[in-house]
């Protein structure tokens, strides 16, 4: 599967960099990466930019990942875009809720390229 434009949403610059690094090693070195520090930033960016994959953290200021997923699934422009949740939080019940809300995959931090390759390819 090829994802040309990938949006990475995380309030930590370090985390965004690690996510990008892992995605590149996992087979997405040629993708174009876009970044946002929270859900609001992501929605703002998506008004101007179409993406093929959204990777988001959960715990973020202004708008968390759970709210972002709901908004993306309610918007016809982003309803079908795959969403990968990457978080240090989470348990079985929460993950079930996120999947119901529209998350395509959920991966825990610390991230590894292998874990990303497994879910995305």
């Amino acid at each position, binding site marked *: 599967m090829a994802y040309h434009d990938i949006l990475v949403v995380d309030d930590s610059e*370090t985390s965004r960099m*690690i996510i990008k690094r892992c995605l590149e090693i996992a087979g997405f070195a040629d993708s174009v990466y876009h970044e946002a520090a929270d859900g609001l930033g992501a929605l703002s960016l998506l008004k101007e930019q179409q993406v093929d994959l959204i990777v988001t953290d959960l715990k973020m200021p202004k708008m968390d990942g759970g709210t972002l997923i709901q908004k993306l699934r309610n918007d016809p422009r982003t309803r079908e875009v795959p969403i990968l949740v990457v978080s*240090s939080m*989470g348990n*079985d*019940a*929460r993950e079930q809720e996120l999947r119901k809300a529209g998350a395509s995959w959920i991966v*825990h*931090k*610390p991230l590894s390229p292998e874990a990303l390759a497994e879910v995305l390819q």
Partner: protein
Amino acid sequence: VTVDEAVGAAVRDAFGEMAFVDVVDGEPGPVSDVAQVLSLSFSDPARGTLALMLPRECKKTVVENVYGVNWDSLATNRIDDCLLELLNVLGGAFMRNYFGRETEFEISLPELVFDEAHLSARGERKDLFFDAEGVIFQVKVWVEGA
């Protein structure tokens, strides 16, 4: 799973995957030249605190490895963000390891602490020591009712 095992696995995963630093159990004893103290607290399903005490050399290695650049080129806010994210990941992994995947848990945002005296924690304290490629660092864990 004991606290020691849950912390040990979380530390090895976080340092290994994020910073490519191999960590093994270290000899207990005073940790020299602690340059950074970070902590986070958890409130559910038990209350407690996790603190990371990093010597200067260990802090530098972790941050340089994560960013892949020389220490001198890094701004303070990027160094802080890196260390806070390390503890955030370590804390989440500890909670999953200790309480299990089926348990809901709540952790605070990690914070930089001026020094050890500013840590406010209650409960039984565990002092765990680790060896990061020759440098000893310490994790302190308080769990109320453990």
